[in-house]
């Protein structure tokens, strides 16, 4: 695969019984295939590096739909994760997945088609509830799409359901398969954005900001509703000049009236991630900030720094367009009030706000 070199396919258990597993392997005839599950050698950094080159095909028997792992004392968006895969072939230095999963491989669950009915049944049996569902929390939604074909599989199913949206979140430009599909309803394609400096120095193997925005422009012009996520915001030397460069590009490429939402979150991480970043990304500067232990045990920028970031971004974004569906990811009621001038108060409140955006854009 261009950009993401897979060096090994690991087929676990009964994976070959599934058509998806066989189709994926057919696309990679020259890649060595093994059936053992013993891929770990106990050395985390090495395993992570190797894991990013190992495509692990397996059945998934756990909960297919999981609530976003929100965090105590912070307001969560109430998003639900459709667990189609874990880990990601991109290699962002700040990625929390480096310390989140025990298994470092690119795990692709090959029985999603067989199990998606469970999720659809849940959606259909709660017609008054809006399900905001995404695949971009535990993996990049589109990085492996040319290989796996999640878009082909999922988009037609969600497009039929008025009380659900499917958000495909990515840092890539893998939109070709999406564009070939006729469905547009209930589908949101969203991109993670950052400053050009953070993108160039910390988001290894991801597309540049202008390429992401060009892909977003094409999706928008082809009728898709799009979203953006400035997460993680990372203050760095010159950030006040650098983030507006991304905003300038947004202005150049994107129609703001057809953005469903833009989220913001500052870099936060569990303390154990620090050693992994130091080892795997010794040149990274993402750990240089003034991090303190937050009320949820995660390391976060000292509060006035976070507030400065959010205020700055909100002011600039709202100057561009004043109805962008801006929201904060995992922040406290206080930060909302003091940087946005209003607060959803709690997770339910933020869910209602985002649900209202869904209704506004999709009826």
């Amino acid at each position, binding site marked *: 695969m261009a950009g993401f070199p897979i060096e090994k396919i690991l087929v676990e258990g009964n994976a070959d019984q599934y058509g998806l597993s066989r189709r994926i392997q057919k696309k990679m005839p020259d890649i060595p295939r093994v059936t053992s599950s013993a891929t770990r050698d*106990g050395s985390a950094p090495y395993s992570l590096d190797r894991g990013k080159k190992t495509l692990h095909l397996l059945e998934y028997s756990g909960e297919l739909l999981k609530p976003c792992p929100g965090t105590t004392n912070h307001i969560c968006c109430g998003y639900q994760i459709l667990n189609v895969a874990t880990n990601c072939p991109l290699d962002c230095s700040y990625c929390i997945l480096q310390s989140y999963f025990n298994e470092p491989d690119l795990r692709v669950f090959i029985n999603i088609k067989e199990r998606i009915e469970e999720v659809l049944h849940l959606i259909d049996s709660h017609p008054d509830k809006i399900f905001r569902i995404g695949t971009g929390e535990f993996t990049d939604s589109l990085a492996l799409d040319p290989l796996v074909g999640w878009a082909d599989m999922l988009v037609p199913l969600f497009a039929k359901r008025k009380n659900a949206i499917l958000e495909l979140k990515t840092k890539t430009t893998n939109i070709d398969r999406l564009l070939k599909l006729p469905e547009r309803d209930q589908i949101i394609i969203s991109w993670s954005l950052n400053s050009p400096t953070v993108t160039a120095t910390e988001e290894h193997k991801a597309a540049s900001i202008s390429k992401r925005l060009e892909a977003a422009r094409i999706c928008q012009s082809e009728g898709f509703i799009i979203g953006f996520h400035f997460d993680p915001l990372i203050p760095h030397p010159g950030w006040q000049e650098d983030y507006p460069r991304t905003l300038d590009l947004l202005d150049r490429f994107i129609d703001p009236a057809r953005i469903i939402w833009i989220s913001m979150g500052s870099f936060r991480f569990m303390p154990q991630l620090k050693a992994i970043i130091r080892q795997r990304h010794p040149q990274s500067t993402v*750990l240089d900030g*003034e991090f*303190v232990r937050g009320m949820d045990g995660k390391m976060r920028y*000292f*509060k006035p720094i976070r507030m400065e970031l959010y205020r700055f971004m909100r002011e600039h974004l709202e100057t561009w367009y004043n109805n962008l569906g801006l929201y904060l990811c995992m922040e406290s009621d206080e930060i909302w009030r003091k940087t946005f001038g209003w607060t959803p108060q709690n997770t339910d409140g933020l869910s209602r706000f985002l649900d209202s955006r869904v209704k506004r854009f999709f009826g």
Partner: protein
Amino acid sequence: MNADFSPYVNRLPATEVPVENVTLAPGPFTMSYGFNLDFLKASVEGAGLLNPPILLESGAGDLLIVSGYRRISALVELGRTHFPARVLEANKIHHLDALLINFFDNLATREFNPVEKGMILGRLAEYLSVEQILDFYMSLLGLPPRKSTLENYISFDRVLDEILKRSLLDGTISEATARALLGRSKEERQAMSGLFTKVTFNMNQQKQLLELLTDTSRISGVSIAEMIQSEPFADILDSASMNRPQKARAILLLLRTMRFPRLTRADEVFKKRVAKLHLPQEVQIKASPYFESEFYRMEISFRNGRQLKDLINQLVNIDGLQEMQDPWEGAE
């Protein structure tokens, strides 16, 4: 493990050996580090040499110490010129077996310190595979059978300088700190070993110190050695008015100020503002850790309701109390 050498060794009679024929420097079989000879010398003087050392003929004509390095060191310090020893013939025993003789001789009678464990593992690694060492010898040394642990212990012996080895043995630095230092450059280790000889950091402080030094050095682009030699550090290290634990706290405070300038400033401003209120001594105002919560806490100590009422009345009349706000807001 091969114990074929046991009958041969056990049958050997002790013979009187001149000290001058023995290579007294620690040889390939010794595994003693950081020991004190006083008790051993007293024992030899009081009861003589009860257990003769074991030596090995070397090809060069002199004798290598297989077992009894400490005993021979004690004899030398006592000025003895000859001592009884069992001498192994070079062609009758493999070097690994000689090493194992000393290992098991010591294992039965004493605990090994971390540097000695490193010496043993490093020497075993010259003859045995990593798997053999992990499977059998790590547990004998009380260590988990992990490759990273094996590598760390070998490095304690081979990488740490004498000052850091001594610091590890006398508890000045923890094993965790020693492990962390293995990943540093020689210059950084030297700079930090100098710091550890002048200042007493407890285990938790050592962890903080390493993290703060590393982060601050990376962010500022100034090497750890340069930082430690810089004026503010030198002032603390050379201070005659501070004891060693006080110096440790001062160094950590200095590093925190460098690493967290905005947080430190906020702390200072908050304390200054609270001090300006001239609260009754029974009243304290505290911020949440790192100011993460938006709420501040006031604590009032009182003996009875009458005193509480008095204190509340005093608080109501304190000028400026209503101006209390986050330390990063308003004029300092």
